[in-house]
């Protein structure tokens, strides 16, 4: 029996010939990412261990992104703990570089790796064919101390993409459509694998966006077939693939979906669930107080270009705050070089430093009671962006920017 990409990566990391769904294997991890959301908890547990040690410090990458720059005395204490520990132990450390997953993609991740991240959106790394999966701080600690962990081999859902997205339709619309189709637990414990001719029409930014959001369908990981686009991206960032796995012709998939990209339309996910998706047209006219363009999902240069194109020569609606947050310093500087930051500021947007921002309801930009946010962030759970009685709609960079201009949910074709 053949194997899927997920199965091949686990087999390689476990040092065995083959694996099958349901098997539990001890695996060697290639990389361990943690951010300021929970690293202080990991450190507390580490310090309580008898004779603690880090198995291989070169595998660790720690990134400040959730509350950068620090927003309170309490957070300053947990930041200091993380900064000091990283320095003492020689852990690779970033602060101000951007949102963790974007920093990882720009600097570390390569095809065929098995990566634990103490953040649920670690599945983003599948964009280059790496098995990234989110874990809590206890799992992280165990992996940090032993270099290993256990994994249950997941079943794989295969998504065969054909055709091409129409103009005005984005990867964000595609992945929201898929989550709506399979549901918020439709891929629970499973891997989501993407391939087919349609994949060749999606650039690396699109691929990161798609893989990043797969956890919102419950997925353990997301994986894309490695192709020329992957190899070009890795080469441009000075990296080689570790493995270049493809699923075997006789690999067993739990289910196969065929998706014609040309049938995808602009989508909005309504409060309070990511799978509560509707045609964006159905939400047109909905009042908003704030719009957010950013996050590990949609804060790359490609997303900022989309927004800038729509808002150039226009103004943010006077009753709306429009937050633009590049996902990394690299993205920010590129946007500066292209004049995109100036376009947003000319229009009246608030441009902030790279961080997780209102996507996780901390940092700056939280919304108040009964307020409504339209966002390219990752989640729209009740209270996610601030007050427990507030509302978050999720949409593409185009729909978010169009809405910021109109002062209500709008699609870009009507601006």
């Amino acid at each position: 029996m053949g194997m899927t990409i997920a199965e091949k990566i686990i087999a390689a990391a476990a040092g065995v010939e083959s694996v099958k769904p349901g098997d539990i294997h001890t695996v060697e991890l290639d990389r361990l990412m943690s951010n300021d959301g929970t690293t202080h908890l990991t450190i507390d547990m580490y310090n309580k261990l008898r004779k603690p040690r880090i198995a291989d410090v070169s595998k660790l990458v720690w990134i400040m992104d959730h509350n950068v720059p620090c927003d309170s005395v309490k957070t300053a204490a947990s930041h200091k703990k993380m900064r000091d520990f990283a320095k003492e132990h020689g852990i690779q450390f970033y602060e101000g570089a951007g949102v963790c997953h974007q920093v990882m993609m720009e600097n570390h991740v390569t095809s065929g790796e098995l990566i634990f991240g103490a953040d649920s959106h670690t599945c983003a790394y599948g964009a280059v064919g790496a098995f990234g999966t989110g874990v809590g701080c206890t799992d992280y600690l165990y992996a940090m101390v032993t270099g290993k962990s256990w994994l249950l081999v997941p079943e794989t859902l295969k998504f065969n993409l054909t055709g091409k997205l129409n103009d005005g339709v984005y990867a964000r619309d595609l992945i929201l459509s898929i989550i709506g189709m399979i549901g918020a637990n439709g891929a629970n414990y499973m891997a989501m694998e993407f391939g087919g001719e349609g994949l060749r029409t999606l650039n690396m930014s699109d691929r990161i966006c798609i893989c990043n959001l797969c956890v919102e369908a419950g997925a353990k990981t997301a994986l894309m077939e490695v192709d020329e686009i992957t190899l070009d991206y890795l080469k441009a960032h000075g990296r080689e693939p570790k493995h270049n796995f493809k699923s075997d012709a006789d690999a067993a998939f739990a289910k196969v979906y065929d998706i014609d990209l040309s049938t995808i339309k602009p989508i909005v996910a309504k409060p309070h669930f990511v799978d509560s998706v509707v045609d964006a047209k159905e939400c047109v006219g909905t009042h908003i107080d704030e719009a957010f363009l950013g996050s590990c999902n949609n804060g790359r240069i490609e997303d900022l270009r989309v927004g800038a194109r729509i808002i150039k020569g226009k103004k943010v609606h006077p009753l709306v705050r429009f937050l633009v947050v590049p996902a990394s310093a690299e993205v920010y500087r590129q946007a500066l070089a292209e004049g995109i930051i100036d376009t947003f500021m000319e229009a009246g947007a608030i441009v902030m430093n790279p961080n997780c921002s209102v996507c996780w309801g901390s940092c700056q930009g939280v919304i108040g009671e009964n307020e409504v946010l339209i966002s390219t962030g990752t989640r729209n759970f009740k209270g996610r962006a601030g007050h427990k009685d507030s509302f978050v709609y999720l949409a593409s960079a185009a729909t978010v920017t169009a809405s910021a201009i109109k002062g209500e949910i709008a699609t870009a074709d009507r601006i």
Partner: protein
Amino acid sequence: MDKFTGKIWVLGDDIDTDIIIPTEYLALKTVQDMAPYAFSPLRPELAGQLNAGDIIVAGKNFGCGSSREQAPEIIKALGIKCVIAKSFARIFFRNAINNGLLLIENEKLRDVVSEGDEITITINESIEHQGNQYPITSLPQNLVDIINAGGLVKAMQKLNNVENG
């Protein structure tokens, strides 16, 4: 704790980690400080009503969302003996096991119970509710080992102690 009886609290589908503990309370120092705010976006009074030994019965996809480990830690800190749901989100599942919080998957129970009912759980065997038995699937051995050790850190300590003599 092979067999125990508890009062149940009933929740719906997709109880996410931001409902279990909203972001604004994560900066509090300990999970004990955070515990009063558990489930507050959904039922602000709930955390104050829970008693040690109570059981939560929920729908599908319990614990979906963030990898924040405070979520299962707080449920444990509130004295909840176990959570029974139609299904659990995977990161929450791992985090709960790693912290020694017992989770049981059961498709049927949620639809037949009412809040305040009592149920009796016999570990690895069944749940009893008003005379009806609902079988429990047993966990894989490696997870049983982790729970029996009192969580993953304690399991690791054991290994560590052995390796270090």
